[in-house]
């Protein structure tokens, strides 16, 4: 209460307590403002998710006002732009699952083998050289992989399988598998290298060989990390678009045969987007219904992954 008097008597030139408090208060406000701005930036990711859900669900609601959900799930034809329109999403799901299946048959074994090799066998020089190669492979744009699938891999496959058409799920799936290898290899390797050395020493001290140690001790110990890498691989395969749009053909085809061309959920969306569908038409809404289906499939696999991870949590 006598701070005013003190301030009047102050001759030292030092800032008064009250002045310093004022400065601190300002500093305090500035700090609060910055924190709020940073929080807002962090919240953008949440807004993105909300935006995705909002867009997909609101357009899908309009779509399902026209198309019954049972028809959507059970119809065996997908002809949304014909006069006699059918909306059987299974047609697109079959293409997605077959191509993803082919991709994973390549990517999971190859990725796991590379991971085991790098983590348990290769000396540090090989590892240092291999990691950037894998990273570069993982960085190749998918459109370039699509080009590669259609114009390089398909002709080579046709030499071996003369009946293979110019567009096929097989060719797209194989290249997609190569694309996914680096993701699986690098995540799996991280998981295996996180297994403590004492575990390996225990195995080696029993007289086991490298491969035996890797398969019977290191892999089981890292299993939840491996599962996570496979789930990521599945997500990539299911969501991959351009390789399929370029090399698998885009005609809807309910098939489980990888030797045939077929549309997938993603390549259908591309096909529609390439055309000129008016905003608000049923054709426009189908791509959101398809996108919602895609998102739910990825979500399903991710939940499965979380569950697997919880079940096989590392216990060193």
């Amino acid at each position, binding site marked *: 209460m006598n701070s005013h008097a003190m301030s009047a008597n102050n001759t030292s030139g030092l800032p008064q307590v009250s002045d310093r408090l004022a400065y601190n208060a300002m500093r305090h406000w500035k700090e609060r403002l910055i924190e709020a701005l940073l929080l807002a930036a962090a919240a953008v990711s949440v807004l993105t998710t909300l935006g995705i859900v909002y867009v997909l669900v609101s357009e899908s609601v309009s779509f399902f006002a026209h198309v019954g959900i049972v028809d959507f799930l059970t119809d065996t034809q997908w002809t949304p732009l014909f006069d006699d329109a059918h909306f059987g999403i299974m047609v697109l799901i079959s293409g997605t699952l077959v191509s993803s299946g082919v991709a994973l048959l390549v990517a999971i074994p190859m990725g796991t083998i590379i991971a085991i090799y790098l983590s348990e066998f290769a*000396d*540090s020089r090989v590892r240092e050289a291999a990691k950037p190669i894998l990273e570069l492979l993982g960085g190749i744009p998918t459109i370039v992989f699509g080009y590669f699938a259609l114009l390089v891999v398909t002709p080579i496959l046709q030499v071996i399988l003369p009946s293979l058409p110019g567009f096929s799920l097989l060719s797209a799936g194989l290249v997609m598998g190569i694309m996914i290898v680096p993701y699986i290899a690098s995540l799996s390797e991280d998981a295996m290298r996180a297994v*403590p050395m*004492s*575990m*390996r*020493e*225990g*195995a*080696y*001290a*029993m*007289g*086991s*060989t490298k491969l*035996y140690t890797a398969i*019977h*001790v290191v892999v*089981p*110990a890292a*299993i939840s990390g491996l599962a996570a890498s496979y789930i990521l691989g599945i997500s990539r395969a299911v969501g991959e678009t351009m390789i399929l749009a370029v090399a698998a053909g885009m005609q809807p085809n309910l098939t489980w045969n990888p030797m045939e061309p077929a549309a997938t959920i993603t390549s259908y969306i591309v096909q529609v987007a390439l055309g000129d569908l008016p905003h608000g038409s049923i054709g426009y809404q189908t791509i959101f219904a398809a996108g919602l289906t895609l998102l739910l499939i990825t979500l399903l696999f991710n939940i499965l992954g979380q569950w697997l991870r919880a079940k096989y949590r*590392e*216990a*060193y």
Partner: protein
Amino acid sequence: MQIHDTPQLKAEARNLNFYYGEAKALKNINMPIYDKKVTALIGPSGCGKSTYLRSFNRMHDLYPGNRYEGEIRFFPDNTNLLSPDVDPIEVRMRIGMVFQKPNPFPKTIYENVAYGLRVRGETNKRALDDKVEQALRGGAIWDEVKDRLHELATNLSGGQQQRLCIARALATDPELLLFDEPTSALDPIATGAIEELVHELKKRVTILIVTHNMQQAARVSDYTAYMYLGEMIEFGKTDQIFIKPSDKRTEDYITGRMG
């Protein structure tokens, strides 16, 4: 060094040197290991006792840049364990090891014990069952786990895990069993159980044990070696080392004046 009655030799280090890269960790070690006896290695931390122990089953071969000089002769066949012509895997099949921290594999109790047998190519279910039970009894843990052989070993308590690791090592009938401070991560009760077990085991197998606990060395061992800065300072019967050490440095360590 004076040894009055001389039992049979199981192994003998001769002029053993060891290098981690450039750093010399073991300096000209000469020491016998007697058959069906417990030999304790004591010394302050960093003295090279674990390094020495891990030379016996060639664990150092797992890491690049490590180098041995000299010999560890293994009897009765008089093999030099360190010879480049000798396969480290073969050495490890003859010599078992129990580690400082229990390191059960992320498998079932049964599969942990059967591991060494499977490595040796055993597939006969009956033979495996017998051997697993025998080993678990040998590890003094059979009664505790016989009803849950197919549960994960990692769910056991620390002391149980360590006895399981001993059982795992016993399952393959090793000629020599290496213990690397096996009780340093355990509570006193679990430690007591392991010490009792070691005492029991020496009827069947030769034991080399590293410990930083002198009372433990005095309790469990027949012979004791004191190591300091990578050198073998003194080796002798445990009684003699603890009651009347001949080297000043040993005496200082044992009486607690250093270490």
